């Protein structure tokens, strides 16, 4: 069994290489297709033609596109994502600084979301058509129906501006706290490692509103998928067989039905994770969260090629890794899906 599994994992990893190559090419083409001339932009307010030309040469943008691509790829091979023009730092450093902020927010939001959505979905599926089912539906649907930036602003308005119970929406930590020593970049973890309860609580407080905003938005896909697949599972033959075999309802529901319903839920979770990490840029903007999404948007707006490419590549790596795990869980859960056919 083990060598076979190892082989499938290796196969699966080798399959993600074309994806990464695709991402590299597409992101290169996409950035070059953006309107706007970074040389002009970064040459500054009062630059004349000479200084624009100088900047263009500095950026290597005076070379032909294929040449630029070769330079980019050879830099990539050496692990160099290039230098962001707007921050003036290596892109890797920018990402390392900002990724944990986004990941922390997204993970907290998803944990929150899962802990509400999955029980809700199961509850709804076990009593289809009841008022609980309808209520769940209405609740989660209402959550996903609001644009995140709108929810965020409304939450700030109510809980910070009107009621004054939320901390000021000033990013990851109010300025009165001391930033924990960087170990992982996740403030909650770093503060816990440092044993600094006060800072931990400070960071947690800042996380509450943005993660609720994101969680509200991600409730629906998870709850709906849980409900849908639970329903399918509960109405399938093997459950009927199990019932007729006299197994208790609880064990049927949670051991057999839920386990079988898990496959689509995990797919959805993966999708939601990737979607959220990419989409929480809007939330980051509202809460002044120094994450990776706002970084990407700013880079995109000013045509900061290296930063956009670096961001896309980092997200792609993350996504590919995540996908790999999902696929492997697939095989564990539903052996009908094999890799042989791929």
């Amino acid at each position: 069994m083990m060598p076979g599994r190892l082989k499938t994992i290796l196969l699966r990893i080798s399959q993600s290489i074309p994806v990464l190559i695709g991402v590299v090419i597409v992101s290169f083409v996409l950035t070059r297709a953006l309107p706007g001339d970074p040389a002009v932009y970064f040459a500054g307010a009062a630059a004349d033609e000479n200084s624009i030309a100088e900047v263009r040469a500095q950026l290597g943008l005076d070379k032909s596109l294929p040449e630029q691509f070769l330079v980019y790829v050879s830099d990539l091979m050496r692990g160099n994502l290039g230098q962001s023009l707007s921050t003036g730092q290596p892109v890797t450093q920018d990402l390392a600084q900002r990724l944990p902020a986004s990941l922390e927010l997204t993970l907290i939001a998803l944990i929150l979301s899962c802990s509400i959505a999955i029980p809700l979905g199961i509850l709804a599926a076990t009593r289809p058509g009841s008022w609980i089912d309808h209520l769940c539906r209405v609740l989660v649907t209402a959550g996903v129906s609001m644009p995140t930036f709108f929810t965020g602003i409304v939450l700030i308005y109510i809980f910070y501006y009107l009621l004054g119970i939320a901390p000021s929406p000033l990013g990851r930590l109010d300025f009165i706290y001391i930033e924990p020593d960087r170990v992982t970049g996740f403030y909650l973890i770093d503060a816990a490692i440092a044993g600094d309860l006060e800072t931990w609580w400070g960071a947690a407080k800042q996380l509450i509103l943005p993660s609720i905003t994101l969680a509200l938005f991600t409730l629906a896909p998870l709850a709906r998928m849980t409900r849908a697949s639970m329903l399918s599972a509960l109405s399938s033959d093997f459950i009927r067989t199990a019932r007729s075999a006299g197994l208790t309802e609880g064990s049927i529901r949670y051991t057999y039905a839920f386990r079988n319903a898990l496959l689509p839920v995990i797919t959805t979770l993966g999708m939601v994770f990737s979607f959220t990490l990419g989409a929480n840029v809007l939330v980051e903007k509202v809460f002044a969260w120094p994450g990776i999404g706002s970084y990407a948007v700013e880079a995109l707006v000013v045509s900061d090629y290296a930063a956009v490419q670096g961001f896309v590549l980092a997200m792609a790596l993350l996504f590919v890794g995540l996908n790999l795990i999902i696929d492997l869980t697939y095989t564990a859960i539903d052996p009908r899906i094999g890799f042989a056919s791929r």
Partner: protein
Amino acid sequence: MTDFISSTANPTEPDVLVERTSGGFFDHLIYVLRGNPITLIAFGMFAILVIAAIFGPLLAPYDPAVSNVSIALQAPSWQHWFGTDNLGRDVFSRVLIATRLDLLISVAAVALSFVIGSMLGAIAGYWGGWLDSILNRLFDTIMAFPLFVLAMGIVAALGNTVENIVYATAVINIPFYARLVRAEVNIRRDAGFALAAKLAGNSDIRVLAFHIYPNALPPMMVQVSLNLGWAILNAAGLSFIGLGVRPPTAEWGIMVAEGANFIVSGEWWLAVFPGLALMFAVFTFNLLGDGLRDLVDPRRRT
């Protein structure tokens, strides 16, 4: 792990599409609606949306594009039900007029991704082999992108017009459909009923289209219902970044995005009403999707 495998690897799982009997559909419709009043409400809400989309321009009390600075930023009143915006335009008229455009964007984008995604996914799942590998890598590549940023990039590169917003939204959704269909088709392509249909002399395409593919519809419907909402929200997000449709065109997303800056200063109606309209539409689509699922799900019909 073993008990688990033996319980699910049961090859006799009945993925059988029940033959449609004449008249059964409407009976079933009534049956479903009776059992699920929310779906009935959703149909009603959908009707309101469609009416607003078709007759909006006739119903609007004011011209949505005409400004009147002397009445800027007025709170809701009998003259202006939803108040006026910073240019003195009637928010109610703008919200109403925007229905058509927003429905158009979401439906067009979802239809496009549904059709393309289904075809590609079915091909990949049914025939497998190198075609499957290539398509899979393609979907993976798109999905590996942070989707919202990809949509932003596409719109930024192509220019911010309605069509480009539709294309961008469609592109980022294609893999979702394709993978779903692929997974469903892949599981069922060697199932008994598919083989039987094939042995009965049906061509591959026929088996795929009429016997296997319909099994993918229930999960697809859930996806569609979510996607119609996502499509509108996606457009709204693009507007928030500034990549929305051109002013002075009324569009919910832009109105919420622009109105959001007025909430703290007390002019809540600018964002709240288009926000509610947006919510109403997404809500409708989602409830409807659920209802449709019950309707098309063969298991509920037995």
